[in-house]
């Protein structure tokens, strides 16, 4: 007997299906089905996964199930050919686009209006016999000779009567009946999960879900024997007949490129070549080196062979647009760092400086697309996106989806709720779980925490949660992956609404696109690019020679010296605590060192224990022992594989992997944490290495390093792009600190540090920072020359953007209406600008009116007392109010409080300085005094807690950063200490630490012993400490 299942839902019918598409396909193969149609509800999101699984083993039919808004029957549409597939996608798009995210609305008239001339339709009528009969007639008109009645048996109550009626209907309408299974799960074992998702979907508990649950587990992939027993042979035969009519495969989908990028007289290859040639002449100053020339030819040939010209042209076009708008951008990814991309201006990384593996992204045999991400200034990425929409139209450009799946937390929460556990209790248990050590441990803890004293439920709960993890929940928009097509995109894949107004996403994610070989362009946002551009603009004011990234001096030793000191706050990628600590040890002295620095301070290399060997070799404590043929692969990293590319290369050179095999290894590595399927490569790798004369020991070591890489490996190609920006930002910080910090402050929020911390760092670098002043400030922070001579070093004048509560129109009104000589008094300010009281009070509290209205209390009181401006009377003619009330001036503590509340920072003295002055911090060292202490001494320090981190790489350690009036103090709290003094660690805002001084090179840590909460001292200053960051 043969059977094709034509009605099957996966978990992409969110909270309906209880199995992954892959599981369904596997089960169908095991049961010997001839074909399987994946017919998720108004969606094709799961078909690519199913397709990947089914390849060569099972015929996969693409279809979709629908419930109409204005008709009671259930409809399943199948796509027998490419046209039908396009029609199906368009119908889904229509239904989805008019409904809010995650929903769809489909009407009868859509079926009539939309062209569904190629789709096959199966339906389950609903209602009384006459109604059913009418439904059938209606559908017959739409789907002539392409309509079947769904004959489905689940051994449910009343089924026999229904089937009798169905048979009568088939005779009446002269329609065939096809056997189907309304499959919701791949195995009957999924019934508990099926019940659970049903309860979650209905927002009820499993205990009161009642008839919303199915009465049995029959909606699974059933055995042929059983189907044979349940269905008449002719119904079963009909399923095969339908499957045979379906010839469409997702393989047929070919990406068709937008044609408009190639001007007349050119075709894509010649146009690309012309652009590359032009760029090469520009980049290499008309002297293209032979090696570069060869590489260009090699890359162009590869692109030609795989017909990727349009892809490069598309990105080139977007980048060219950004450039024309003065939007900084920088490409990333292995393809991005090719010579061609350098010539096309997609990247600034000179490929002659970095050895990058071009094969990685263009896999000759597997037809997978290259990978280029382009970062744009974060404040202006939207302009680029709008350009894409303008250029290609909304019908041809859409964002890829990100499939949001259940993770441990959400699964525990939803499953717990559905099982009727107490909500507060669930949260309590969730909060007690340490997530760092992976999901399994979390579940173990749940078991111990005893969410329920019902042993049955307890046992099910763990299994249910484990199964639910990874189930898709909804589609969200990918951060920036655009799909651009030649024809309407909704004939390629359905488009639906995203949560963000006016945004649409396609129903596939980037893995799906990759599987089908469809191209996407990643348009990403990067704050540092904004900061760099703003800095460059500021420098223009006094040094016009530095306008672009190309104007920045290469390999500046002084810049590297600064980094070697760990002086990198604000510098891209190397400003985190861990990076700052590593800088003095790695001592970068050239661009490539930065590439390594960025990649090595990551969980992967740290866990794979690659840092220490590298440091030992770099410090010449140990001699690298690299075989000759590995020299080109590992030589530049002293024999330690640090980058993903190196692992791939290693597999090729040392174990004889082909480029494609190596690429599979890369994918497996990326997915290793999830699936753990690295094992198959182990033998191949070790055997390959043994065959090439490596020792077993070395081969094992390499394999373990690959494993250690896990999912964390960082590609050299990304690191190279980031290192460039790191260097640029370090250069700017060193040579133009005022402009650099001003640019950073004007790009907030971004980076690791708050404005307060940035300003302190700026002042430490000798930059003068001036307060907000209604007569001197602008919306943005600006540069100013206190001694009025542009030769002198600039100072930063804080801008209105720092003043909390001051509206943007408010600050614009000040700039627009400010007299050349400035405002005389608060009255004039109020009348000339028309500012409302909220804006005025914000200015007063920020002390921005001190020049014209006295101290902030008085300014506030006075300003509120002014009458509303009467436009007809000139302000000068109005009389002063008679009562003059003098309010007391704020003391220093109150001033500090006001500064922090109104701006989040203070240019005045640090609270710690005040406390010290009051004698409240006896025997406590400042950050500065710490520098002179010796290694191993017991010291006492105190400061505002500005950072509390538990990095994933360091097990159980908490890094605390304290800030006092002289700088930052780094505290390391070991797990035991943290455990014992939890309260002080978690709740202190002002913390005193006594501990042991630890010094390595210039890096100082305090290993915490006793922690004391001193928060009450700040409160004593009348400073609510929450305002400190």
């Amino acid at each position, binding site marked *: 007997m043969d059977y094709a299942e034509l009605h099957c839902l996966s978990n992409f019918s969110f909270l309906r299906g209880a199995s992954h598409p892959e599981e369904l396909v596997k089960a169908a193969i095991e049961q010997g089905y001839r074909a399987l149609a994946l017919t998720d509800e108004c969606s094709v999101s799961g078909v690519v996964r199913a397709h990947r699984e089914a390849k060569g083993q099972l015929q996969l039919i693409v279809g979709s199930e629908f419930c109409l808004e204005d008709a009671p029957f259930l409809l399943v549409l199948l796509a027998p050919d490419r046209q039908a597939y396009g029609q199906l996608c368009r119908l889904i798009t229509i239904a989805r686009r008019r409904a809010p995210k995650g929903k769809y609305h489909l009407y009868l008239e859509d079926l009539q209006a939309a062209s569904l001339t190629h789709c096959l339709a199966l339906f389950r009528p609903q209602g009384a016999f006459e109604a059913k009969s009418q439904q059938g007639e209606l559908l017959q008109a739409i789907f002539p000779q392409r309509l079947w009645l769904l004959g489905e048996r*689940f*051994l*449910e*109550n*009343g*089924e*026999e009567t229904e089937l009798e009626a169905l048979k009568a209907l088939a005779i009446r309408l002269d329609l065939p009946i096809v056997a189907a299974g309304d499959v919701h799960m791949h195995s009957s074992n999924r*019934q*508990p999960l099926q*019940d659970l998702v049903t309860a979650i979907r209905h927002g009820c508990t*499993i*205990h009161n879900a*009642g*008839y919303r*649950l*199915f*009465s*049995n*587990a*029959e909606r699974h992939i059933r055995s042929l024997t059983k189907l044979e027993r349940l269905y008449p042979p002719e119904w079963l035969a009909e399923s095969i007949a339908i499957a045979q009519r379906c010839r469409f495969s997702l393989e047929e989908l070919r990406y068709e490129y937008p044609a408009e990028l190639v001007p007349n007289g050119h075709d894509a290859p010649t146009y690309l070549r012309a652009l590359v040639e032009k760029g090469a002449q520009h980049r290499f100053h008309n002297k293209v080196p032979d090696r570069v020339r060869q590489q260009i030819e090699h890359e162009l040939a590869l692109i030609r062979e795989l017909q990727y010209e349009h892809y490069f042209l598309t990105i080139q076009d977007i980048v060219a647009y950004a450039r024309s708008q003065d939007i900084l951008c920088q490409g990333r990814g292995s393809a991005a760092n090719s010579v061609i991309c350098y010539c096309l201006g997609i990247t600034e990384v000179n490929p002659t400086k970095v050895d990058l593996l071009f094969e990685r992204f263009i896999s000759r045999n597997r037809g997978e697309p290259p990978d280029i991400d382009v970062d744009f200034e974060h404040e202006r990425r939207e302009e680029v996106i709008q350009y894409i929409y303008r250029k290609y139209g909304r019908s041809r450009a859409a964002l890829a989806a990100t499939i949001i799946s259940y993770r441990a937390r959400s699964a525990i929460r939803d499953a717990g709720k559905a*099982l*009727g556990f107490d*909500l*507060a*209790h669930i*949260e*309590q248990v*969730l*909060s*007690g779980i340490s997530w760092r050590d992976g999901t399994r441990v979390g579940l173990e803890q749940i078991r111990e925490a005893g969410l329920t004293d*019902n*042993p*049955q*439920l307890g046992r*099910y709960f763990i299994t249910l949660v484990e199964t639910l993890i990874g189930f898709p929940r909804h589609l969200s928009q990918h951060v920036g992956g655009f799909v651009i097509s030649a024809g309407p995109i909704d004939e390629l894949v359905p488009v639906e609404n995203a949560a963000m107004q006016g945004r649409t996403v396609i129903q596939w994610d980037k893995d799906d696109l990759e599987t089908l070989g469809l191209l996407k362009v990643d348009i990403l946002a990067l704050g540092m690019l904004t900061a760099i551009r703003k800095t460059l603009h500021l420098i223009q004011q006094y040094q016009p020679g530095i306008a672009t990234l190309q104007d920045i001096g290469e390999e500046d030793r002084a810049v590297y010296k600064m980094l070697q000191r760990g002086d990198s706050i604000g510098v891209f990628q190397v400003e985190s605590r861990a990076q700052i600590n590593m800088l003095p040890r790695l001592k970068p002295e050239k661009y490539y060192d930065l590439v390594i620095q960025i990649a090595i301070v990551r969980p992967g290399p740290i866990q794979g224990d690659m840092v220490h060997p590298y440091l030992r070799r770099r410090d010449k404590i140990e001699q690298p022992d690299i075989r000759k043929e590995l020299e080109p692969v590992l030589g530049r990293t002293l024999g330690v594989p640090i980058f993903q590319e190196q692992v791939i290369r290693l597999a090729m050179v040392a174990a004889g992997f082909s480029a494609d095999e190596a690429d599979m290894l890369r994918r497996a590595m990326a997915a290793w944490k999830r699936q753990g399927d690295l094992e198959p490569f182990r033998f191949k790798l070790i055997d390959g290495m043994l065959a090439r004369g490596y020792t077993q020991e070395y081969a094992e070591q390499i394999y373990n390093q690959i494993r250690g890489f896990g999912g964390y490996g960082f590609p050299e190609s990304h690191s190279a792009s980031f290192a460039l920006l790191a260097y640029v930002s370090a250069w700017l910080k060193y040579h133009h600190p005022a402009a650099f910090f001003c640019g950073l402050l004007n790009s907030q929020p971004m980076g690791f540090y708050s404005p307060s911390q940035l300003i302190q760092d700026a002042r430490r670098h000798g930059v003068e920072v001036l307060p907000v002043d209604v007569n001197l400030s602008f919306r943005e922070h600006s540069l100013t020359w206190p001694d009025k001579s542009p030769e002198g070093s600039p100072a930063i004048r804080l801008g209105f953007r720092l003043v909390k509560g001051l509206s943007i129109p408010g600050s614009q009104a000040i700039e627009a209406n400010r007299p050349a000589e400035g405002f005389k008094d608060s009255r004039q300010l109020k009348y000339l600008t028309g500012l409302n009281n909220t804006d005025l*009070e914000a200015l007063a*509290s920020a002390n921005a009116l001190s020049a014209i209205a006295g101290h*902030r*209390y008085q300014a*506030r*009181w006075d300003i*509120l*007392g002014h009458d509303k401006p009467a436009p007809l009377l000139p302000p000068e003619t109005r009389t002063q109010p008679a*009562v003059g*009330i003098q*309010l*007391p*001036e*704020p003391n220093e503590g*109150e001033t500090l409080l*006001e500064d922090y*509340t109104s701006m989040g920072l203070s240019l005045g003295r640090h609270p710690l300085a005040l406390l010290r002055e009051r004698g409240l911090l006896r025997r406590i060292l400042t950050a500065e005094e710490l520098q002179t202490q010796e290694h191993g001494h017991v010291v006492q320090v105190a400061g505002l807690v500005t950072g509390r981190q538990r990095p994933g790489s360091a097990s159980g350690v908490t890094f605390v950063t304290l800030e006092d009036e002289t700088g930052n103090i780094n505290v390391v709290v070991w797990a035991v200490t943290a455990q014992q003094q*939890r*309260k002080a660690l*978690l*709740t202190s805002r002002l913390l005193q630490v006594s501990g042991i001084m630890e010094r390595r090179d210039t890096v100082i840590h305090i290993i915490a012993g006793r922690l004391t909460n001193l928060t009450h001292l700040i409160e004593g200053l009348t400073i609510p400490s929450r305002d400190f960051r």
Partner: protein
Amino acid sequence: MLWLYIHFPSLQLDHYQRAHTHPIPVALVDGQPPRVREANQEARQQGVSPEQSIHTAASLAPTLQLCPDDTALQEKLLSRLAQRCYHYAAHITLCPPDGLLLEVSTVLRLHGGLRPLYRQLAETFQKQAYQAWIAGGATPLAARLLARNHTALSDDPSTQWATLRNLPIQATDLPVGITDRLSRMGLRKIGQVMDLPPQEIAKRLGTDVTSYIHRLSGRQPDPQPAWSPPKHFEVHLDLLRELDTVTAILFPLQRLLQELADFLRQHQLATDTLHLNLEHRYDSTTRFQIRTGKQAHNTETFLQLCRLQLEHHILQAPVVRIQLRVDRWLARQPDATDLFGSTASQDSLQQALLDRLQARLGRKHIKRPNAVPDHRPEKAWQAGEAPVKFPHPPSQWPQRPLWFLDRPQPLLEAPQDWLSGPERLGGGWWDGQNILRDYYVARLTTGRIAWVFRQPQGGWFIHGWFA
């Protein structure tokens, strides 16, 4: 006029603690994601404090009990406490969510002055295990602010004013926006604001502020609506730890009965019927109606009665909440005879009939069949005391036999005809009573139509009759 304000700083927390002899850490949580709103002393000692995420709170105090912040409960508790004050002052005003205002100038002499009255009140609340901050003042607002800020009690008006003037402006009920503005003009104390010309304040901050200050200082009248006690008495206790023996229930119950006795004494009433509900986990409730032949009004009698009735009862599940309700009042008469039986019931005829049947045949022998939407035949019906409504139209219920057999009988004869089936019923994994059966309808040789099933492990059983 003299006003007394009683502020209950931790009404709900005290309520939860009351049922327990030992202090336990409790916190009220609210919001999404939930955060701590209030924590009792025990919890605070372990570092729990308001605004903490429950993540932090739970890691600080592993045994912390989290209770949702419940405004309805808060209101109930407040009016319950108002009942208790009825004894001391005739004019009581509820100041939700956590205060009571008493006009005491008229009753001061009765109690021998402010301090004795204060002591009596303090004692009453202490006995009931409620924290209460009490203060007197010349205006309602003055009393309120002094109480809420936990100032020392004073019966000297000038001391009262001095203390009041020295309170921070945040201590007032003025909106945060206003107090924030005031303190950010350097005006941090109530006295500073009182000293400023009212018209200047009104101009800057609106007349609401000046009006408030006037009411505070007594320059403007501040009438207070009087509260009157409710007609029926209903109190409950939420247990943080589930109680699973009858004797364990008696301790917290005693507190409720004491409250009842106080209530009856204050209103000069008695009763002959108590409704005692023990609520179990998962929403089920055991209800007791405790009756006496005679009217009663003291704790001992009530406790005795409850003990008698509860002693024979085996709890079906641990108790999470105890509720005591009385809605039947008798005038308190020392010589009252048996009032039971002769009093005509106000209930409907049906209730009267039910009462009669229940009285003689026993409550548990009269059941109402309820249909439950559950696929498992055994779970699809319930014999309850009250009807349960499920919004299912008739056609949504499955086809089932009218007679259902409590215990399936083995099918001993070969049926004559098989009329329909199989219908497969499988599920119910969540409560350990999962089934997997195939049901058939068959006509037996006797002509009866049976609902029979078979299980995977074999065996045929009759589970019902299509009568």
